[in-house]
């Protein structure tokens, strides 16, 4: 094997994949050396996911060849990919929640691989120690945190002794501390000669860990670079084509009167694997944006549902809007009082998939377009077209069904629709999720305008960078607890990262314990 170091681990030659109406991959050629950590960059829809699915055998290419260790291979299915030594960690984990860790891993192994392992549990324990993964084989997956689940996925690949590990946006669900843990694992793997293909949106991570980068745009390879020699800004330029205005941060404002209050909000989750909310307190002030950071699944969904009224349980005086108790009001009544809401799930909750954009506009617009019970269609259409134009929504027209839009475009439409109602209080999840740089800028501007007009805005997002950019005030959720609220200028990524990992929970608890005066002094 030593003599073959000059042979590349993986070589893609002219891979092309055509989907109806969209050329996902156009003549893509990439080479990976053993031990190389290679970044695959590009905006949403650039064709990254299609490419890695092709390598992993989930998608079959229309044209092109794949060379594995110098030999041409035809990867028809994921099991063939795994036999070759290709492992993949998906963006949305492919774990089975009702099974244990070791059962999950066993399912992935072929009979031949399984027969080579005497005792799967002890093998998992050994690898767990070797790579510092800290994975317990006997636990059920539904009891694991997101970070732990990802480690299970990586373990699944390690057990099969992979030679190429593909990671699809692995860090988007992790706290900063977990990210550095992941990078340690990747570095060990790379030293052992395992190649890594790393998809990410976070450019500073790419410059930190990757040896090589390939940039995709519109299904084509537009550039390659050595991330070490570049800055995040220069890589971003390659991704979007022209230099987008990346402001260091918008001006911060301080709010005036409190428009919305949550006090001591505790609530169990309706979902079997959900997170209960625990004593949540926050104030939303007029003319201020509060950003809540947190890793997905720490109670954000439950919080959003109860704030918007989608979760119809009566929480009484725990929620106040404009000094009015709204805990017993349903979602429609809260909207009438001036609340707007952008849920995380766009298709199905933010918009009705089978309805046209015009109809979807009408759904949340109670004022103006209906007179004496009759719909003023022309008005709604004109208004919808304005939204489409202002937020650069790519679609055939105002008659397009919501389901026909791509995720990012639908997000732009929904954001525009909600902002356009001039709400007093806007509750919003992931404002620019999946949205390209240009449109994200438009959404940011609209949010700031809305703030300056005196609206109170709550943003819940996993994208810390964006929260720091937009929010005047910050907090973080972890395990259903909400951290204290601080001004954005008075905090930094490290502190919010610590909070996302839950450090504030112990701090809060210790303040109530009289026997630890030292800690109290620190706080």
């Amino acid at each position, binding site marked *: 094997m030593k003599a073959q170091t000059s042979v590349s681990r993986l070589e893609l030659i002219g891979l092309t994949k055509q989907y109806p109406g969209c050329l996902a991959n156009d003549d893509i050629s990439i080479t990976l050396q053993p031990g190389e950590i290679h970044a695959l960059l590009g905006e949403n829809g650039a064709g990254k996911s299609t490419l890695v699915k092709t390598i992993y055998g*989930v998608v079959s290419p229309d044209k092109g060849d794949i060379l594995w260790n110098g030999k041409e291979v035809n990867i028809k299915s994921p099991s063939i990919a795994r036999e070759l030594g290709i492992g993949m960690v998906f963006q949305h984990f492919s*774990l*089975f*929640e009702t099974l244990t860790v070791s059962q999950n891993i*066993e399912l992935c192994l072929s009979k031949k691989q399984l027969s080579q392992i005497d005792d799967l549990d002890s093998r998992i324990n050994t690898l767990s120690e070797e790579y510092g993964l800290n994975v317990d084989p006997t636990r059920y997956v539904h009891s694991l945190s997101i970070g732990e689940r990802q480690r299970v996925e990586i373990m699944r690949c390690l057990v099969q002794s992979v030679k190429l590990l593909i990671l699809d946006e692995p860090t988007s669900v992790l706290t900063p501390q977990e990210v550095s843990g992941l990078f340690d694992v990747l570095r060990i793997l790379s030293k052992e000669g395992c190649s890594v293909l790393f998809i990410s949106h976070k450019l500073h991570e790419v410059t930190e860990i990757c040896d090589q980068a390939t940039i995709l745009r519109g299904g084509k390879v537009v550039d390659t670079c050595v991330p070490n020699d570049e800055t995040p800004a220069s890589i971003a330029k390659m991704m979007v084509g022209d230099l987008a205005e990346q402001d260091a941060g918008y001006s911060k404002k301080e709010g005036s009167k409190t428009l919305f209050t949550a006090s001591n909000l505790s609530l169990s989750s309706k979902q079997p694997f959900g997170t209960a909310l625990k004593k949540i307190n926050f104030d939303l002030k007029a003319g201020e944006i509060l950003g809540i950071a947190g890793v997905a699944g720490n109670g954000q969904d439950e919080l959003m549902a109860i704030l918007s009224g989608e979760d119809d349980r009566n929480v009484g005086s725990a929620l106040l809007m404009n000094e009015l108790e709204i805990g017993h009001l349903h979602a429609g009544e809260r909207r009438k009082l001036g609340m707007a809401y952008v849920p995380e799930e766009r298709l199905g909750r933010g918009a009705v998939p089978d309805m046209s954009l015009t109809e979807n506009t009408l759904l949340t617009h109670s004022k103006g377009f209906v007179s004496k019970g009759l719909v003023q269609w022309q008005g709604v259409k004109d208004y919808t077209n304005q939204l489409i134009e202002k937020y650069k929504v790519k679609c055939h027209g105002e008659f397009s069904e919501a389901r026909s839009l791509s995720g990012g475009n639908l997000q732009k439409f929904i954001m525009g629709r909600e902002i356009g109602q001039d709400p007093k209080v806007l509750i919003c999840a992931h404002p620019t999720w999946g949205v390209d740089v240009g449109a994200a800028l438009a959404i940011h501007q609209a949010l700031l305008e809305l703030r300056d007009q005196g609206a109170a805005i709550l943003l819940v997002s996993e994208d810390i960078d964006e929260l720091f950019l937009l929010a005047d005030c910050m907090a973080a959720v972890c395990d259903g607890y909400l951290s204290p609220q601080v001004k954005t200028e008075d905090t930094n990524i490290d502190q919010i990262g610590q909070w996302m990992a839950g450090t504030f929970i112990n701090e809060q608890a210790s303040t109530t314990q009289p026997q630890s005066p030292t800690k109290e002094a620190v706080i």
Partner: protein
Amino acid sequence: MDADLIVQILFAAIKTGTPLLFIALGEVICEKTGVLNLGQEGMMLMGAVVGFLAAYSTGNMGFGVIAAMLMGSIMSLIFAVLVLHVGANQVATGLALTIFGTGLSAFVGADYVGKTLQGFQPIAIPVLSDIPYLGRIIFNHDILVYFSFFMTGLLIFVVNKTRLGLTIKAVGENPNAANAIGIKVLKVRYLAVMFGGAMAGISGAYMSLVYTPMWVEGMTSGRGWIALALVVFASWRVGRIMLGAYLFGLASIMHLVLQGLGLSISPNLLAMLPYVATVVVMVIISADHFKEKLLAPRSLGKPFNPRNMA
């Protein structure tokens, strides 16, 4: 009430519960892979009539049982193709299968109504059947009852101890993830549905060859529906299905028990008991949303199309 009567009642409960056990075992495997087949009643009736026909015309009971299982699988194959391949709605297709099976079985069996057979005879298992009370309750049955014991044990083992069991659970919980790791989701579902069909067939055969060895139109009288409730009642656990089947069996012979106690209640009223019990159990289980979601296979009733995996 003397001990003898209690032994007889429990013996009868097992006998009455056996067709429920067969059909529910088939359905639970089917549902564990995420497919809800409401065609149980139709498949069972077709199994009953074809089993009777085959046994009556050949005089071979074993042949009747095999014919019933084959018929059940063929019926379920129709369902599988429509639901898994064409992507038809599972609920509507299942209901159609029941209506189809009810009609077709009446048509096929029209000439055989009222004819009778010498059914399977009880086989006392040496030594075990001599155990006081228990021997007479459990070890003095016909061969199909013993086969149902065996199948229950086999399925408990397969579901909990084997890779096949893991695969079945994985497909039912998250077919997309299962597909991503290379499990052939549709193949697993096809096989599970057809296994369900075969078990429904043998359940029908038990009705027409053992329980009342004759063919009467609609003779399964809703057992296919009770079996569906039984699966929920057992919260998709194979072992609990056996327990549930015998409890339901006991409920349906309750009038014997009450007569033994000297109570006179209309037998028609008592015949309702298993159905009332079903409703009560469904209400209790559904009341706890949280639990229901945790126990049920997550993809139950949802179609899976590998071509949509882009």
